């Protein structure tokens, strides 16, 4: 499977471990990534706050660049913000003729052009979940994460607004849960899995930013989480980088390492921790990772039989969707 690859600024430096682990895992799973030539920043959520046309032109330049990878109409972005920006631009330019016209003229000024709809922008999680699939992933696992309690953390921008290709529930996504299960991890039914890390809030208002981080870390801690698995560099930066500052702000003492899901996939495939960029995290995952391999007693198969004196009312059937 061949894809155009859009790393995004974060993966150059701050989230380099996400980049290396992504590339390693991808090649192991037989995916070919061709990096988009001379790509630029997607503008995050900042540019669109200042100038609509400029913001969309900035993004559209990347789409235009991507079309230079002839034959590749699938674009993969590991960063949720980049993914949403690219995906949204492609959609909005297809709908808003007036904006599309302005953006088209702007691109022309740089000798570029892009026809909305000609590319299919997807997030790495979605590609691994749908194109590779759980079977292939399970098959690739050599060193299952048995005993490691992992909280899947999706954040906002791949499940909302509902552009997600997998048609995931914007409130209660499950693809990452399933992937982590496939890796043999003990998946925490994490109620905060799709809540917000606060984005740039730490820079705008510490009270707000740190509170939003606290909710997520506490939520994970309440469920005895060993590791939080993220799919976005911004989320990782907030939960990992600011965890210490948050602890000081609320005089708490949480210590929950935050890894990229690709790092965990790599480990489960038997790749060396350092090749996965393990150790780059500020809150060290070393201690948690020692758990991998330690066996735990298997969960009882099927629901327990109903006792005579049991008065409890049956739970509603979970229906489709939820795992």
């Amino acid at each position: 499977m061949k894809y155009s690859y859009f790393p995004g600024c974060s993966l150059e430096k701050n989230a380099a471990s996400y980049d290396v682990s992504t590339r390693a895992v991808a090649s192991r799973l037989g995916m070919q990534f061709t990096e988009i030539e001379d790509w630029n920043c997607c503008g995050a959520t900042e540019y669109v706050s200042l100038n609509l046309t400029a913001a969309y032109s900035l993004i559209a330049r990347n789409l235009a660049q991507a079309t230079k990878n002839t034959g590749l109409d699938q674009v993969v972005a590991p960063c949720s913000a980049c993914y949403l920006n690219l995906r949204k631009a492609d959609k909005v330019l297809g709908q808003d003729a007036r904006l599309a016209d302005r953006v088209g003229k702007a691109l022309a000024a740089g000798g570029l052009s892009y026809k909305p709809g000609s590319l299919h922008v997807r997030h790495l999680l979605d590609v691994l979940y749908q194109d590779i699939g759980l079977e292939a992933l399970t098959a690739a696992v050599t060193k299952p994460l048995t005993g490691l309690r992992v909280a899947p953390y999706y954040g906002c921008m791949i499940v909302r607004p509902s552009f997600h290709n997998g048609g995931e529930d914007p409130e209660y996504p499950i693809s990452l849960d399933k992937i982590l299960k496939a890796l043999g991890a003990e998946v925490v039914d994490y109620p905060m899995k799709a809540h917000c890390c606060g984005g740039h809030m730490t820079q705008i208002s510490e009270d707000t930013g740190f509170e939003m981080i606290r909710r997520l870390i506490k939520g994970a801690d309440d469920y005895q989480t060993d590791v939080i698995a993220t799919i976005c560099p911004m989320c990782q930066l907030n939960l990992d980088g600011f965890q210490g500052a948050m602890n000081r702000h609320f005089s708490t003492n949480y210590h929950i390492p935050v890894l990229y899901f690709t790092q965990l996939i790599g480990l489960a495939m038997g790749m060396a921790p350092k090749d996965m960029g393990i150790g780059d995290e500020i809150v060290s995952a070393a201690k948690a990772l020692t758990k991998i391999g330690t066996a735990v007693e298997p969960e009882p198969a099927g629901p327990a039989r109903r006792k005579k004196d049991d008065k409890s009312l049956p739970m509603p059937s979970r229906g489709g969707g939820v795992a």
Partner: protein
Amino acid sequence: MHRKSASNPFLEEVVATAPGGDALRTCLQCGTCGGSCPSGPDMDHTPRMLFAMINGGMREQVLRSNTPWYCVSCYYCTVRCPKEIPITEIMYALKRLAVRDGVYDDTTAPDFSKTFIHWVEEYGRSFELGLMGVHMIRHNPFGAFKIMDMGVGMVTKGRMGFAPTRIKALDGLKRILAKAKELEAQA
């Protein structure tokens, strides 16, 4: 099919500025947005209240509100809104109007956006260290101590560059953005 409001040009301005903003006309003031917002408690008006104010034509108060600047783009309001109002987009639109007309009290957030974009426009890529450095010094010099360990960690672990990467076709990008701004100004 809706009639443009003659009595409330501000409503029309907002609707025109936000892609899909027309849905704003159907707001039923249920508060799903205000209830969903993770930074809601720190906003001086909930989004719902802001929409009521837009409906009341209170341009100045709305643009000066910190509400849009506290939006973290989590899109919870957008997916939950029973009237399918693209609330996040409307927040972006309000920010653009406030910046364009220089009407905002809370200077931290707009400044952050500007600083961020400064690097992007000059190099084509963003630059955490520069961004956080400049921003911290401007707005929260003491805050730097709070996150010292992080900063150090980030640097020692090589997670933070000391100079942003410059893209090859930078002048091309600059031409694109210049043209874009020119067109935006006319729009």
